[in-house]
Each structure stands twice: as structure tokens, then as C-alpha cells.
């Protein structure tokens, strides 16, 4: 029994609204997670005054961003200056649309309740949105009429387009093993026996680490965060932005982190499937049965965010030429070798 197009449209609208709200809340609390975790790594508390354990800190930060004075310097090229943060945040929030975070086929008619768009090219959509996200940074730096912004944005854009290659190539191995670009199909193929059949334990170990490093560079996070290094570039491409526009760039960075975590769990860690596989019986209650996979998914994404912040607190940052060297001369050949090895493995099995 399939729903009509109109009902499908309404269900999609509902899903988009819920996922956007959850994503924005996730972004806000990822900021809190980072501040508290980096604080603990550095042997201090982090935000702990506002609310219990500092849990109301993101709300207060948001209010502060809204109320700050919005300064627009005189020499900026206005249309692009205002467009750039919109582009950055829009692209960051868009790639969550193809991510399945729960059991498929749970929903009325032909509607997947836990996935907004079930596309045959889901993985490529995420790569495409990443490619378009470069514009947010490039246009922000150029329109700011500021040498430091321009240099920061050029460096950052060059870093992004260099590591896009390694990112895409590292995912080809997973696609070769699965035979589809559909994210739901990739997860379903890993669901056979729990943790043993997850892609990270089956041949894609090296690809996972290549993906992780390329993703850290794509999201401009430590140790690849030279474009934002305050000591070098006075803030890089978001030097001239204040209050809400700066907050949009900030949110875009954390939304990208969450997306990277989601993609890594889907492709390498079995998505919403539990690591125990068939060992325990699924719960009888229909609501708990539907919500348990979401719990596993959120847990795995949280582990990736934890890893992100842990790496940020621990490693020093790369110099720019070391960064480009690493991307072009180490990661990309490694990713190509991984494709070669995976295709030989798939061909002879």
C-alpha cells in the first residue's frame, strides 16, 4: 500500500523538520562536548556554571550570538559577504538528508520513517555537497576585502579540494565490496553477524583510517586547522564576520563533524545494527524495537565526536606544506592502493 505523492511530500516535510531540529541541537551540544572535553584534557573543568554541569551553556551562547552587534565592514562585496555563511551552513545541514539512522521499512506505505531520502546515489550526494561547500569558504575570504581573510580562504579551499580526492577514493573500496552506492544497502550488507561483518573488520581497515584523516582535513579540524589558526592568520576566512554570521560558520563546522561521524558509522561500523548481531533477541515491544537501532547509531556517532575532540586536544597542527604533502603524496596513493587491493580481493572471490 503506497502513499500518494502528496502524503509522501507531507511526511518528508515532517522528517526534514524533525531532523533539522535534532541536528541543530546536536551541533549546539557538540560545542559543549568539545569545551568540556578539551577542558578535562587540559586538567580544568570547562563550562560548569550555567545549569547543571554546564548543560544550559549552548542556549546562553546562542542568545549571546543573537544579541551581539553585527558589524559589516565598509569595503566588503556585500552580496557574497552575506551569501557565504548561508552557503556554508546550508551545505553542512544538507548532507544529513541521505543518512539512514534507523531500521528501514518502518513507516506507513512506502515511507522510510528513519531516512529522509532513499537515493541510489546517496554516497555521491554527500561528496557532491562537500564539493559545493568549498564555495562558502572561498567567497567568504574574497568578499571580506582583507588580506588575511583572502590568504586563509585560499589555503583552506586548496586544503579542501586536495583532501576531497583522498576522501572519495577511500570510499570506493567500500562501494566495491558492497556493490551499491545506496547508504541503506551498504549498512544492510554489514548486518549479517554483528561486529564481525562490519566493514572495518572485513578488509576496509586501512580505508577507514584514510577516510578519517581526509575527513579531519575536510572539516578543517585539528590537526589540519591551519586556516583557522589565530596565531598565524588572525582567524582566517571568518576574520571579518561577527555575531550571527560567525556563529553560522561555527555551526557549519560542527554540523560537518556530525555528518562525517554519521558517514563513518554507516560505511565502516555497521550503521544502526548492533554489534551483537543475532546473539540477543530483538525486543518484543514495537516501539522499543524501532528505537533501539537509533540508540546504537547515536552511540556510534557520539564515539566519533569524542574521537574528534580527543584528537583536537592532543595533536599539534600541521604546517601548510606538510599538510599538502600529506594529502597528495601519502593519502592519495594509499587510497589508490586500497582500491587496487580491494578490487583484486573482490575479483578473486
Amino acid at each position: 500500500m503506497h502513499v500518494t505523492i502528496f502524503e509522501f511530500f507531507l511526511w518528508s516535510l515532517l522528517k526534514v523538520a524533525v531532523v533539522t531540529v535534532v541536528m541543530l541541537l546536536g551541533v549546539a551540544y557538540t560545542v559543549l562536548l568539545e569545551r568540556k572535553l578539551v577542558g578535562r584534557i587540559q586538567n580544568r573543568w570547562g563550562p560548569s556554571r550555567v545549569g547543571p554541569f554546564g548543560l544550559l551553556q549552548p542556549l546562553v551562547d546562542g542568545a549571546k550570538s543573537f544579541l551581539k552587534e553585527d558589524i559589516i565592514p565598509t569595503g566588503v562585496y556585500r552580496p557574497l559577504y552575506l551569501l557565504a555563511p548561508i552557503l556554508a551552513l546550508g551545505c553542512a545541514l544538507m548532507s544529513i538528508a541521505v543518512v539512514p539512522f534507523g531500521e528501514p521499512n518502518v513507516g506507513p506505505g512506502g515511507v522510510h520513517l528513519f531516512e529522509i531520502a532513499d537515493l541510489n546515489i546517496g554516497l555521491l550526494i554527500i561528496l557532491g555537497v562537500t564539493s559545493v561547500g568549498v564555495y562558502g569558504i572561498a567567497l567568504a575570504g574574497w568578499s571580506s576585502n582583507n588580506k588575511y581573510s583572502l590568504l586563509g580562504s585560499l589555503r583552506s579551499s586548496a586544503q579542501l579540494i586536495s583532501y576531497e580526492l583522498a576522501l572519495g577514493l577511500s570510499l570506493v573500496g567500500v562501494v566495491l565490496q558492497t556493490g551499491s552506492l545506496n547508504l541503506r544497502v551498504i549498512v544492510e550488507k554489514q548486518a549479517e553477524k554483528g561486529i564481525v561483518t562490519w566493514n572495518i573488520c572485513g578488509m576496509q581497515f586501512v580505508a577507514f583510517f584514510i577516510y578519517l584523516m581526509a575527513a579531519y582535513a575536510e572539516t578543517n579540524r585539528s590537526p589540519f586547522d591551519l586556516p583557522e589558526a589565530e596565531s598565524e592568520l588572525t582567524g582566517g576566512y571568518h576574520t571579518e564576520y561577527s555575531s550571527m554570521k560567525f556563529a553560522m560558520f561555527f555551526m557549519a563546522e560542527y554540523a560537518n563533524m556530525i555528518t562525517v561521524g554519521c558517514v563513518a558509522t554507516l560505511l565502516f561500523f555497521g550503521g544502526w545494527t548492533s554489534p551483537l548481531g543475532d546473539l540477543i533477541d530483538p525486543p518484543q515491544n514495537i516501539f522499543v524495537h524501532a528505537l533501539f537501532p537509533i540508540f546504537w547509531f547515536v552511540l556510534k556517532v557520539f564515539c566519533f565526536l569524542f574521537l574528534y575532540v580527543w584528537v583536537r586536544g592532543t595533536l599539534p597542527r600541521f604546517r601548510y606544506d606538510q599538510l599538502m604533502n600529506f594529502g597528495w603524496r601519502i593519502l592519495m596513493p594509499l587510497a589508490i592502493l586500497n582500491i587496487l587491493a580491494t578490487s583484486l580481493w573482490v575479483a578473486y572471490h
Partner: protein
Amino acid sequence: MHLILFVVFAGFCLAGAINLLLQSHPINSALSLIVVMTSLAVLYLLLGAEFLAIAQVIVYAGAIMVLFTFVVMLLNAGREERTLGSRSARNVGFPAAVAILAIIATIILKAQGLGTAQLSDGLTDVKGGTNIEVLSTVLFTRLLLPFEVTSVLILIAILGAVALARHGAGEPSASEPKVDNQ
């Protein structure tokens, strides 16, 4: 649904293309072209070409236009000027372009046997399966040689671009003072 989506995104395409002509600063033209390319990607999706739609976004809008944008930013290209050449080109070229469009449109409208397109139409050719499966089956079996030749083409393009855009390409290297060690 198909009609509404087609009208909206074809409108974006035409608006972007006309804006490309009307703007005087190249960066605005570049952004209009990006709008055209992403709208074309949606139109490819409506015609059942999923892989081409996303390839259009990744390759054209996400790489080629980034190149254009970088070149506009780095060369600091300013606004265009109106010269005698531009005015005469407009007076002669505008009727010529309209004439070309009229000829092509007449041929298209007189053609018979053109069908219609629906949202549920996919692509059913070789053995069925998704659009990517069909495309890649043909590309990697019957058309493997052209595929490999295009990879050599891209390699040549990379080498050519690096050689042309390098500092010192075409400039005499005698600009450095020759130090005589005596």
C-alpha cells in the same frame, strides 16, 4: 509534480543564463553559471539520469566552477568596460543569436515522435538495474578503451595546466643576475 519541478528549475536555468550575460563583474557571472549548473543537475534527475546529475554537481559545479572562481579572485578581474567593439557586437550579434534560436526552435517544434517524460520513468536498457549499474556495465565493458583514453587526456591536461601557469613560464630566466665567482 514533474511539470512544477520542470518549470521552476528551467526558470532558474534561463534566469541564470540571462544573468550571466547581463552582469558586468565576472564573479557574478560565475555564480550565475553555478546556479545554471545545479538547476541542470535537477533536470537530469527529472530525466532519470541520477549519476549524471550528481556528476554534474561534483565535477561542474564543485570543481570546474571552483577553478573559474579562483581565477577570477586571483587575477582580480574587474568590471567590464563598454567599448565600440561591445556596442557593435550587441547590435549585430543580438539579431544573429535570435535568428539561430528561431531556426533551432522551429526544427524542434516541427519534429514528430518526441514523447513525454514522467517522474516514474527510469532507464531500462541493458539488463535493468539501477541507472548506475546500467551506465557502468556499458562503460567498463564495451567502452573501456575510450574510458582509459580519457584518463590519459586528463593527465595531459594536468601537465599542460601546470606547465602553462607556472611562474617563470615564458619569462626569461636571465632576469636573475648572474654572479661571477672569481
